Protein backbone atom coordinates (compact mmCIF):
# COMPACT_ATOMS: atom_id res chain seq x y z
CA UNK A 1 0.00 0.00 0.00
CA UNK A 2 2.76 2.44 0.91
CA UNK A 3 4.60 1.41 -2.30
CA UNK A 4 1.53 2.30 -4.34
CA UNK A 5 1.24 5.71 -2.68
CA UNK A 6 4.99 6.33 -3.16
CA UNK A 7 5.04 5.36 -6.85
CA UNK A 8 1.85 7.30 -7.60
CA UNK A 9 3.20 10.41 -5.88
CA UNK A 10 6.53 10.16 -7.72
CA UNK A 11 4.84 9.75 -11.11
CA UNK A 12 2.52 12.71 -10.46
CA UNK A 13 5.57 14.76 -9.44
CA UNK A 14 7.38 13.82 -12.69
CA UNK A 15 4.41 14.83 -14.87
CA UNK A 16 3.81 18.05 -12.94
CA UNK A 17 7.46 19.07 -13.17
CA UNK A 18 7.53 18.34 -16.90
CA UNK A 19 4.44 20.48 -17.55
CA UNK A 20 5.93 23.22 -15.36
CA UNK A 21 9.24 23.13 -17.27
CA UNK A 22 7.46 23.47 -20.62
CA UNK A 23 5.04 26.24 -19.59
CA UNK A 24 7.45 28.37 -17.54
CA UNK A 25 8.87 31.49 -19.28
CA UNK A 26 11.80 31.90 -16.88
CA UNK A 27 14.40 29.46 -18.17
CA UNK A 28 16.22 29.13 -14.83
CA UNK A 29 13.03 27.75 -13.25
CA UNK A 30 12.72 25.35 -16.17
CA UNK A 31 16.27 24.08 -15.53
CA UNK A 32 15.48 23.54 -11.83
CA UNK A 33 12.32 21.65 -12.87
CA UNK A 34 14.48 19.47 -15.14
CA UNK A 35 16.64 18.70 -12.11
CA UNK A 36 13.54 17.65 -10.18
CA UNK A 37 12.48 15.38 -13.07
CA UNK A 38 15.91 13.70 -13.10
CA UNK A 39 15.85 13.32 -9.31
CA UNK A 40 12.45 11.67 -9.17
CA UNK A 41 13.18 9.51 -12.24
CA UNK A 42 16.21 8.13 -10.38
CA UNK A 43 13.93 7.07 -7.51
CA UNK A 44 11.46 5.47 -9.94
CA UNK A 45 14.23 3.44 -11.64
CA UNK A 46 15.42 2.45 -8.19
CA UNK A 47 12.02 1.20 -7.09
CA UNK A 48 11.68 -0.73 -10.38
CA UNK A 49 14.80 -2.75 -9.40
CA UNK A 50 17.23 -1.17 -11.88
CA UNK A 51 20.02 0.39 -9.81
CA UNK A 52 22.54 0.61 -12.67
CA UNK A 53 20.14 2.68 -14.79
CA UNK A 54 19.46 4.83 -11.72
CA UNK A 55 23.21 5.35 -11.24
CA UNK A 56 23.66 6.51 -14.85
CA UNK A 57 20.62 8.77 -14.63
CA UNK A 58 21.95 10.33 -11.41
CA UNK A 59 25.41 10.97 -12.91
CA UNK A 60 24.18 12.45 -16.20
CA UNK A 61 20.91 14.08 -15.18
CA UNK A 62 22.17 16.08 -12.22
CA UNK A 63 25.79 16.91 -12.90
CA UNK A 64 26.04 17.18 -16.68
CA UNK A 65 22.61 18.50 -17.72
CA UNK A 66 22.28 21.14 -14.99
CA UNK A 67 25.80 22.52 -15.45
CA UNK A 68 25.55 22.70 -19.25
CA UNK A 69 22.10 24.36 -19.15
CA UNK A 70 23.22 26.91 -16.55
CA UNK A 71 26.29 27.82 -18.63
CA UNK A 72 24.03 28.18 -21.69
CA UNK A 73 21.64 30.48 -19.79
CA UNK A 74 24.58 32.57 -18.61
CA UNK A 75 25.80 33.04 -22.18
CA UNK A 76 22.36 33.79 -23.65
CA UNK A 77 19.22 35.24 -22.03
CA UNK A 78 17.36 34.10 -18.91
CA UNK A 79 13.82 35.22 -19.77
CA UNK A 80 12.05 33.79 -22.76
CA UNK A 81 10.32 36.62 -24.62
CA UNK A 82 7.28 36.20 -26.82
CA UNK A 83 8.29 38.84 -29.36
CA UNK A 84 9.61 36.23 -31.79
CA UNK A 85 6.29 34.42 -31.85
CA UNK A 86 4.34 37.59 -32.60
CA UNK A 87 6.77 38.58 -35.35
CA UNK A 88 6.46 35.18 -36.97
CA UNK A 89 2.69 35.43 -36.90
CA UNK A 90 2.81 38.90 -38.45
CA UNK A 91 5.19 37.77 -41.18
CA UNK A 92 3.00 34.83 -42.05
Amino acid at each position, binding site marked *: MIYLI*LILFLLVLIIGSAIYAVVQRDLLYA*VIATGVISL*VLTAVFYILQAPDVA*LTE*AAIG*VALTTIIF*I*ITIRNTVRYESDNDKKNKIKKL
Partner: protein
Amino acid sequence: MIYIIYIALGFMILGLFFASFRFIKGPTAGDRMVALDTLTTILVAGLVVLAYIFQRFIYLDVALVYAVLGFIGVIVIARYLEGAL
Protein backbone atom coordinates in the same frame (compact mmCIF):
# COMPACT_ATOMS: atom_id res chain seq x y z
CA MET B 1 10.19 -3.79 13.56
CA ILE B 2 9.42 -3.45 9.89
CA TYR B 3 6.40 -1.25 10.63
CA ILE B 4 8.72 1.50 11.89
CA ILE B 5 10.41 1.52 8.48
CA TYR B 6 7.04 1.87 6.75
CA ILE B 7 6.07 4.73 9.07
CA ALA B 8 9.38 6.45 8.22
CA LEU B 9 8.59 6.00 4.52
CA GLY B 10 5.18 7.61 5.06
CA PHE B 11 6.74 10.63 6.73
CA MET B 12 9.20 10.93 3.83
CA ILE B 13 6.27 11.03 1.40
CA LEU B 14 4.77 13.83 3.53
CA GLY B 15 8.07 15.75 3.37
CA LEU B 16 8.27 15.25 -0.39
CA PHE B 17 4.74 16.66 -0.71
CA PHE B 18 5.54 19.85 1.22
CA ALA B 19 8.90 20.36 -0.56
CA SER B 20 7.27 19.98 -3.98
CA PHE B 21 4.54 22.41 -2.89
CA ARG B 22 7.22 24.98 -2.09
CA PHE B 23 8.92 24.20 -5.42
CA ILE B 24 5.74 24.97 -7.37
CA LYS B 25 4.57 27.98 -5.33
CA GLY B 26 7.88 29.60 -4.30
CA PRO B 27 8.03 33.20 -5.49
CA THR B 28 11.79 33.57 -5.99
CA ALA B 29 14.49 31.42 -7.57
CA GLY B 30 16.14 30.84 -4.20
CA ASP B 31 13.01 29.14 -2.84
CA ARG B 32 12.92 26.75 -5.77
CA MET B 33 16.65 25.99 -5.46
CA VAL B 34 16.33 25.21 -1.74
CA ALA B 35 13.25 23.09 -2.52
CA LEU B 36 15.34 21.09 -5.01
CA ASP B 37 18.02 20.60 -2.35
CA THR B 38 15.42 19.47 0.19
CA LEU B 39 13.92 17.03 -2.32
CA THR B 40 17.43 15.62 -2.93
CA THR B 41 18.07 15.11 0.78
CA ILE B 42 14.70 13.46 1.48
CA LEU B 43 14.93 11.20 -1.58
CA VAL B 44 18.45 10.06 -0.66
CA ALA B 45 17.16 9.10 2.80
CA GLY B 46 14.25 7.31 1.09
CA LEU B 47 16.68 5.37 -1.14
CA VAL B 48 18.59 4.17 1.93
CA VAL B 49 15.35 3.05 3.60
CA LEU B 50 14.29 1.23 0.41
CA ALA B 51 17.72 -0.49 0.31
CA TYR B 52 16.98 -1.79 3.82
CA ILE B 53 13.53 -2.98 2.78
CA PHE B 54 14.83 -4.74 -0.35
CA GLN B 55 17.75 -6.24 1.68
CA ARG B 56 20.27 -5.43 -1.09
CA PHE B 57 23.55 -3.94 0.04
CA ILE B 58 24.58 -2.87 -3.49
CA TYR B 59 21.65 -0.43 -3.69
CA LEU B 60 23.39 1.93 -1.27
CA ASP B 61 25.80 3.01 -4.06
CA VAL B 62 23.01 4.84 -5.88
CA ALA B 63 22.23 6.87 -2.75
CA LEU B 64 25.94 7.64 -2.31
CA VAL B 65 26.39 8.85 -5.89
CA TYR B 66 23.24 10.95 -5.75
CA ALA B 67 24.22 12.55 -2.44
CA VAL B 68 27.56 13.64 -3.94
CA LEU B 69 26.29 14.83 -7.33
CA GLY B 70 23.12 16.65 -6.23
CA PHE B 71 25.33 18.90 -4.15
CA ILE B 72 27.25 19.95 -7.29
CA GLY B 73 24.08 20.87 -9.18
CA VAL B 74 22.77 23.05 -6.35
CA ILE B 75 26.18 24.74 -6.02
CA VAL B 76 26.21 25.60 -9.75
CA ILE B 77 22.71 27.14 -9.56
CA ALA B 78 23.71 29.14 -6.46
CA ARG B 79 26.82 30.47 -8.17
CA TYR B 80 24.71 31.56 -11.15
CA LEU B 81 22.27 33.39 -8.85
CA GLU B 82 25.21 35.10 -7.17
CA GLY B 83 26.41 36.27 -10.58
CA ALA B 84 29.90 34.83 -10.23
CA LEU B 85 29.80 31.68 -12.37
